[in-house]
């Protein structure tokens, strides 16, 4: 997949801002001031995954590294795609179809996980969407 260019201008950056591939994947986001982030674009290359360049309210740009969430299916997905490509290079049509079917299943499961993670952001909001008449969800306009 071609790397999406980060369309962000970097002001004097933090000293350790080089996007080398040596970032360990377990770094937590360096800044929690998400409200100030006005633009985020993902630079997704094979070497430096999960790093996004964030522009903080025009003042300074920092590097925010989003770690891969535990239980993420991304690695499994990459693995299964590689496997499928290998199997299909061979001659068994049935096994080729089965391995791409497995890729499809894992992609669907990964998508569901992402949706779940999004949905779990504010449990009250999700609950109230489905049950607006309950006491917790009543809205009074005074």
């Amino acid at each position, binding site marked *: 997949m071609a790397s999406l260019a980060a369309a962000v201008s970097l002001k004097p950056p933090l000293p350790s801002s080089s996007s080398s591939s040596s970032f360990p994947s377990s770094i937590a986001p360096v800044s929690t001031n998400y409200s100030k982030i006005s633009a985020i674009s993902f630079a997704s290359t094979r070497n430096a995954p999960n790093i996004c360049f964030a522009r903080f309210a025009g003042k300074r740009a920092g590097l925010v590294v989003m770690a891969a969430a535990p239980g993420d299916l991304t690695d499994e997905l990459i693995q299964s795609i590689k496997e499928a490509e290998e199997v299909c290079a061979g001659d068994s049509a049935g096994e080729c179809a089965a391995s791409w079917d497995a890729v499809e299943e894992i992609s669907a*499961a990964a998508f569901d996980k992402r949706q779940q993670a999004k949905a779990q952001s504010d449990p009250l909001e999700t609950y109230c969407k489905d049950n607006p008449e309950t006491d917790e969800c009543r809205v009074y306009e005074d």
Partner: protein
Amino acid sequence: MACAAAASAATLAGGASPTLTCCRAEANLCTASSLTRVALSSRSNVMPFVSQFRGHAVCSSLTAASTDILPVQSFIGNGRQRSVSNLVVICKAGSDQTIVIGLAADSGCGKSTFMRRLTSVFGGAAVPPQGGNPDSNTLISDTTTVICLDDYHSLDRTGRKEKGVTALDPRANNFDLMYEQVKALKQGKSVQKPIYNHVTGLLDPPELIAPPKILVIEGLHPMYDARVRELLDFSIYLDISDAVKFAWKIQRDMAERGHSLESIKASISARKPDFDAHIDPQKKYADVVIQVLPTQLIPDDNEGKVLRVRMIMKEGVEYFEPVYLFDEGSTISWIPCGRKLTCSYPGIKFFYGPDIYYDNEVSVLEMDGQFDRLDELIYVESHLSNISTRFYGEITQQMLKHADFPGSNNGTGLFQTLVGLKIRDVYERILAKESSTVTASKV
């Protein structure tokens, strides 16, 4: 009740364990039930009933709505009338009927937008069973239980890879178990249904499913097996055309690291032969087919954002009356945008007419384009007929309630909501028929 004459008594002799006899009026037979489930109503007079029997079984399909233990209450609980030895349990027939809906869809189980809209029409949110396997595919709400047919896979992911079969192949599914369990649930018995874990690709230990009022079986093969087809009260097939499927899969998977355009293309085309051979033929059995096609309003559109959605409704299905525009059986092409309503590009176009689909007579209602305002939606709703709403504006209200779901501004959301309302209508008609049979047999 008609079977009261044949009603046997249960003896409350001290210490002896009583067997309850339950009459099901529609079958006019009395069966001794020693089944395991007791559903308690919130009425306190039922509580002592259970405690007297120390947990012994009552009719399996007694639910709060259907229990009518009228004369029984006086026998039990307060100890005063322990000497009375005859016990008649009256089961009100009809409200313990489970209706089964089949939904054939390729988009994964239970978490799809269709399911959420459907369960929302019946009220309440459908959630995975509490306290069970977190990767369970089942969704349960007050009235509805949605079962994913992937749970009836006979081979797990590794097994399928070894044998070289996809999940679409009938050889990877246990249709005997599917038939047994759906039949049991329809008859009001609980089942231990296996779980297919989509995350690990393994078959997990089973979970207990209680019979609901409405059972929806969603998956790839709801109408494949003839026996299961017989059990379905209503069936729907969601037919996504290849171009739209491709566009959706790109949207879904391109955000995922690891996928490339080629791998997405390859995974769709590798599954296509099995899909065409095993899944596609189920279309002809469905009562409603929802076809999603690329729009005809925008030339050369390949983004798949504007959609043309056709709802193909079989004629002559019991309890189901197709939705129509203007007049049943006529052909009409309708553009609602004009003087009363201004729409933005590309607008909305409707079509309604009779047709023949796989040798069946059908009515087709079609919508091309997008809604972008509330008044467009209410205007369209006011011109559709046979929509089975309980009040004017119910469709609009349902669509607005889920305005963030995909398809809320086009025919997919509209027709999914319509199908949900139609299913509710089928359910109510079946119930009404059951209770009128009961009244007839009382006479």
